[in-house]
């Protein structure tokens, strides 16, 4: 019996979201008296033994040229083989770009019930129930899973990475791998240095900035904070900023540690995409902006004065000036 965690990687490195999933899976194993094991498809530059620091005992590594192409149909069959070998009763994915394609498929393949977008440890005292986000962050639901095998996908930034002592045993796993039907012909980096969905800090701006030419100051604030940039829907619709920066109900939903909103009034649809942020700071010249009701900290005033001051105050704190 085991809790099996899928380890996702990009550019030779394990994704931060997978470190969260590993920590989460190891906690479930501890809670249910089983062992945590991981599965990785392909090769990375990171030391896989070090995944033991999250509490994982074994890492099954499947190396095959066909796996260089991400194809959920092919990956699913490989993960299912490993799950069988490992005797997995709970299988964990991150609810990220790969996990969204894999978790449902693996669930069907293993006749397992799926809870997608979970954000807390399961309650295993009587059956198996786990909390997930519903209504775009406006509520939570407890999902009871009735099947013998359970598949969970963990929301990004919903579980703190736990790092302790330990070394995992890396086991090469010889799987049957089909040839992929998908073929990636191009891959580009769209946003800046920090991925929006994985970012700890997000700086976002809206119509209050008056035009795309005024984004320099929010970019500088984001750089200072090591933050990803985001924007509101009107800004993306007016093509001031690219669509992939639009956060909100119909854009990207994020859950950073800190969300700084500049010149965004906070329509309910925008809140639905950001309300899982742990700390929200709102800068707006309109004291009646609805966003202040959802914020932890607020500054009522002119963004063009406040943002540069905020940037230099943070630089001072970080000892950069």
């Amino acid at each position, binding site marked *: 019996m085991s809790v099996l965690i899928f380890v996702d990687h990009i550019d030779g490195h394990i994704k931060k979201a997978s470190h969260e999933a590993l920590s989460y899976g190891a906690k479930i194993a501890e809670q249910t008296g089983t062992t945590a094991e991981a599965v990785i498809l392909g090769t990375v530059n990171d030391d896989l033994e070090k995944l033991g620091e999250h509490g994982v005992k074994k890492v099954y590594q499947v190396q095959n040229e066909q796996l260089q192409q991400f194809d959920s149909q092919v990956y699913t069959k490989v993960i299912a083989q490993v799950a069988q070998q490992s005797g997995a009763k709970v299988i964990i994915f991150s609810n990220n770009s790969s996990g969204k394609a894999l978790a449902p498929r693996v669930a069907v393949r293993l006749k397992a019930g*799926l809870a*997608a977008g979970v954000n807390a440890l399961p309650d295993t005292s009587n059956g198996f129930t786990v909390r997930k986000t519903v209504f775009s962050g*406006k509520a939570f639901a407890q999902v009871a899973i009735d099947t013998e095998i359970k598949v969970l996908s963990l929301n990004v930034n919903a579980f703190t990475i736990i790092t302790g002592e330990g070394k995992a045993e890396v086991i090469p796993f010889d799987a049957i791998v089909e040839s992929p039907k998908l073929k990636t012909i191009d891959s580009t980096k769209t946003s800046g240095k920090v991925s929006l969905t994985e970012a700890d800090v997000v700086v976002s701006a809206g119509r209050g900035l008056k035009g795309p030419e005024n984004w320099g100051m929010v970019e500088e604030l984001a750089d200072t904070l090591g933050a990803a940039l985001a924007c509101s829907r009107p800004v993306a619709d007016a093509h001031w900023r690219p669509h992939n920066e*639009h956060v909100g109900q119909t854009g990207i939903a994020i859950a950073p540690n800190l969300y700084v909103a500049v010149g965004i009034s906070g329509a309910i649809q925008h809140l639905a995409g950001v309300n899982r942020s742990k700390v929200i700071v709102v800068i707006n010249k309109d004291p009646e902006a609805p966003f*202040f009701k959802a914020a932890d900290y607020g500054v009522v005033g002119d963004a063009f004065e406040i943002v540069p001051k905020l940037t230099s105050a943070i630089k001072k704190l970080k000892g950069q000036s």
Partner: protein
Amino acid sequence: MKILVCISKTPDTTAKIAFTDNNTKFAEAGVQWIINPYDEWYSLVRAIELKEKDPSTIINLVTVGGADAEPIIRKALALGGDEAIRINAEPLESYQVASLIAEIARNGNYDLVLTGKETIDYNGGAVGGLLAEVLDLPYIANATNLQVNGSTATVKREIEGGEETIECPFPLVLSCQKGMAEARIPNMRGIMAARTKPLKVVDPSPVQTLTKFSEFQLPPAKQGVKLVSPDNVDELVRLLHEEARAI
């Protein structure tokens, strides 16, 4: 080409979220219902755009729901699409919904099955992937662009901090998100035409449910905003650092 577009009925984006029956049910009283925005703006509109380019394209819509889902599916037909199928069952969870749709998809020999990236109520984002595995078809989640070149689809999808362009032969399943198409509103001609488009009601075959929503909770209320003077931004930084420990 034959396209199946999956449509869900969801509460309006501004609907008040509350629960009844000991917090086990969504409180539907007074709620306005809409087509799930991801199903409407992205998958359905993209399918319509493809039909505009190639009028031989056939678009069928499918929904799982009771008679109360008919206004929603009619509204979808007003935007476009040739005919709709309503599977007469209360949608309970994603596996049940996917199993019911899979039967329609299998019998219809579709080249392309489109879903929204998730519904805005239960946020599972799972139906596309579940369907793909039940049908043993390729699947691309969170697609932002779709081009058709003969027997191959060229799809863009968002990944962490970037974007990939992928080629895949038909048939395939896609879940669609922003970027795929621009939102439209139905015109009078579409609304009139939708009244006479075929809407087939089929009885569900018995399928399993594997999960159950046992209880709902509202998040704890916010403490209230702490306002800082615009002349004292240093204080905001101090609070973020010392109190919130966010920087």
